[in-house]
Structure formats: C-alpha cells, structure tokens
C-alpha cells in the first residue's frame, strides 16, 4: 500500500514537472477560478450581512394617547408578545418618553418652556421588533384593528425598505455577474485540466503501454494522473489564499466603513470562518480537478 502510494505521488510529481509550463497554466486558471468564485461568494456574504444589519434596525414605534393608563399599554404589549412573528416589545413609559424628548430639545428653550407649562403631553410608547422584515405587515395589521383605534395615537414604521431593496438589487446583480464569471472560469478550468491530463497521458503513452504489458493494475496506471490533478488543486488553493488574504487587509477598512454603526466586522468575520473558507476552496478545487481528470482518464486511458 505504501509502495503504491509512494510511487503514485512520485509519478504525479514527475507528470507535473515534465510539462511544467502546462502545469503552471493549469494552476493559474484554477487560481483565477477560485478568485472569481470566492469573490462572488464574498460579495454575496457582505450583501447578506448588509441587509441583515439594516433589517436589524427596523422596528415599529407605537405611540399611545397620553391619557391611556400604563396597564392598558402593558395589555397591548402582552398581546403583541403572543404573536409568533414578534421578536421583542420594548416599553417606554410616559415619563421616560418625556425625558427623552427634553434631552433631545435641550437647546430649544421655547419647547422646554412649553412643556413646563402644559405638563407631559406624551403617551407611552411600545417599540416592536419582528422576527423578520416580512412579519411587519402582520404586526401593523393587528395594531390597525378597531379595538386599538382609541388607544393608539400614531405609529412610525421606518422600514428602510428602500435601502433594503437597493441592497438586494445590487447584491443580486453582482451575484448574477459573479455566477456568470465563475461559470466561465469553471468551464475553462475543466477544459484546461482535461487537456493537461490528456497531454500528460499522451506524453506517457509508451510508459503506460509497458506498465500494462508487465501487469500494472488499472489503479496503478490511473492513480498518478488523478493525484497530479489533485496537486493542481492544492497548489491553486495555496496561491489563492496567499493572494486573497493580504488583499483582505486592503479592502477591510472600506467594507468596515460601509458598515459603520452596524454590527459587522469583515476581518473578524473572515478570521472566524478561515478554516471553513480554506476547506471549502480546497473541496471545490479538488472536486473540479477530479471531475475533469476522471473524464480525461476515462476517455484516453482505457486499460
């Protein structure tokens, strides 16, 4: 078994170095494929995170009439909390609402004086957060029912829908372009690997014939070509990571400034998933190489 493995790896390296320029071109194409797929996936993740962050800021503020008692407000709060679509309901009392109002208008003595004259004109407020952006219509329709008409003074629903729509639009466009570019590179990579293995089989045809004559098993003949294609995949991943990782340091400040005020940090996100990203790239490159080299071996190496 060790002899088989040792010779397979040795032959694979020989195949790699014998047609070195062809091997280099194959690795470069695989690296470009990994770039395009990784960048497309990265943009997709950033867009998703952006939408998620914006969505997290969406809520409905329900302003109650000033004369509504705390108990009545809390009753509405309990009913809202019973809805499966509701994530949380925050309560701001009349007094707290007034304090916040005063704090906001510290520099406007006219408003402060008016407040002192009329007393607290504000009612309590409930801040409703739904589980998903799509759940807000359900929450709003409940609040619009007749039973609450006399209690509620108004609602503010800043749904950020425009921002979300724009982000989704940009994201889906970029994703589509990324998918097309990636598909083109994947097809090129499959063809290049196929051709490289085919040329290597041709280069080794005499050796393969002799191996068959003296009784080499199918796997003994085929395995080096498969391992050689795996070698392309591993090298391509190493190069792709070596180039993409420093690039991350360059683009991270731009991405992070885009997310200023939101809970997203690109560098720590990538660090958190680094092993998965490398494993994913390796898996992708190996599967790609395996498929195309298997086709070439099946087509040109019938033993």
């Amino acid at each position, binding site marked *: 078994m060790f002899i088989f493995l040792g010779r397979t790896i040795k032959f694979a390296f020989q195949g790699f170095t014998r047609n070195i320029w062809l091997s280099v071109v194959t690795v470069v194409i695989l690296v470009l494929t990994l770039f395009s797929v990784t960048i497309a996936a990265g943009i997709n993740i950033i867009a998703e995170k952006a939408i998620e962050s914006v969505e997290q800021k969406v809520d409905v503020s329900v302003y109650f009439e000033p004369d509504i008692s705390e108990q009545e407000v809390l009753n509405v709060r309990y009913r809202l909390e019973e809805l499966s679509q509701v994530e949380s309901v925050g309560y701001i009392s009349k007094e707290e609402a007034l304090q916040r109002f005063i704090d906001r208008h510290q520099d406007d003595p006219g408003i402060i004086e008016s407040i002192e004259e009329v007393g607290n004109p504000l009612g309590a407020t409930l801040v409703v957060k739904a589980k998903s952006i799509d759940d807000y219509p359900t929450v709003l329709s409940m609040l619009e029912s007749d039973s609450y008409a006399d209690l509620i003074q108004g609602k503010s629903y800043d749904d950020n829908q425009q921002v979300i729509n724009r982000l989704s639009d940009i994201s889906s466009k970029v994703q589509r372009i990324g998918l097309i570019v990636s598909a083109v590179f994947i097809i090129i990579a499959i063809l290049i690997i196929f051709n490289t293995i085919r040329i290597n089989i041709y280069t080794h045809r005499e050796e393969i014939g002799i191996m068959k004559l003296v*009784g080499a098993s199918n796997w003994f003949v085929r395995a080096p070509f498969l391992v050689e294609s795996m070698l392309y995949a591993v090298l391509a991943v190493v190069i792709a990571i070596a180039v993409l990782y420093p690039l991350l340091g360059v683009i991270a400040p731009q991405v992070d400034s885009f997310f200023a005020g939101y809970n997203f940090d690109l560098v720590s996100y990538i660090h958190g998933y680094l092993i998965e990203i490398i494993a994913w790239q390796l898996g992708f490159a190996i599967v790609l190489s395996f498929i195309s080299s298997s086709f070439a071996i099946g087509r040109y190496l019938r033993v």
Partner: protein
Amino acid sequence: MALIEIRDLKKVYNAGEPNEFYALNGISLSVDQGDFLAIMGVSGSGKSTLMNILGCLDHPTSGTYMLDGEDVGKKSSGELAKIRRNKIGFVFQNFNLLPRMQAVKNVELPLIYEGIPPKERRQRAKHMLEVVGLGNRVQHKPSMLSGGEQQRVAIARALVNEPMVILADEPTGNLDSKSGHQVMKILLDLHLQGRTIIVVTHDPTIGEYAGRVIKIIDGTIKD
C-alpha cells in the same frame, strides 16, 4: 491438463460492416507445460492478434481461452492485469524498456506492481540480470546497451516474476544474427529448464529452435 487450451477462437474487426475482417478465424490450440512452440506466419496472418489474446492484452470475439485451468475470457481487466503480472512474461521485438530507467529498474517493474518490498525486488532483479549474462550492466540505461543486451534485459524482466509462460513476439526482429542467436539460446535454455515458451515469428530459422511449429495463414492454423 494443458497449460493453454484455446477452442474455436475468433477475432473479428468491424463485425457486421462491409469491411468486416476476421483476424483469427476459428483457431484451436493446446500448449502443454514445458513446450517450446513457434507460431509462424507472414505479416497480416493474424499471429500478433493471437499473441495479444494469449497474452491477455486483447479479448477474442468468440471461442474459449483456458490458461492454467482458468477461463480468461470471463476475467475483468483487473484480473487480466494480475494474470499478465503473475503468469505471463513478455518479450517484444522493440524490447519495450523504459528509456529513463536503468536496466535493474526496468527488470524490477513487474515486482513493483506485485507489491514486493524494494530490497527483495532489487535482489531478484539483479539475479535475473546475472542469469541472462548482464550482471555487469545493472546500472546501464537502455540507450547505453546494444540491441541484444536490451532484449536480454527484456527477457530478465519477463522472467523475474517466475511466469508460467513466456510469450515472445519476433524477439530477434531488431537484432543482428549474432545477438539474435544469443537471445534464442537463452530462450532455448529456459525451455530446457522446463519453462513454457511461445515464440511468434515470420523467420523460419527461429522455428528451428522450437520443439513444435504451427503455421498461421489468414487467421487459421495450417498443419
């Protein structure tokens, strides 16, 4: 029981097409352990096709081929590779040596595929090179050897796995008469030691070394 038993063997190319061609047309043959058989025929007679089938390098279209009691026609390609590795040794006109490898490494090849440890296979390969008179050429690459020496390396490689039968296809075809005689002398010695040798040739002088000669014409045996 015969070592090789073939019955009504046919090999048809382009079957059912207008250019259908019978390379072998109903060959029956029996070879016993220890025989030295020469299969003679002109170019295109079907002798190399027969050699390829006997060597498990090709499948017959119909008929049966029993080698050492086993029906070779029913074997998978992996099993055929094992038969080639363990039961058959090949010697070809163009030697079929790997040019990048030294003589000893060429001889080691079948042992590598058999999974023999490096030390043992090196010893066995060297011993086999000594048997064919090339004990002083173990480190030489094929390009540093004469045609006769290269063919002797090929014979050493054919013998190293202790095969049941040695198949030689025009073994002297690329050699001068002196080297050719040396090669045939080695094959004759091996026969005298009890080995089964089958030589395919168009050269009548080669037939003189064999104990038994069959002639093949247009894919059939003519006695």
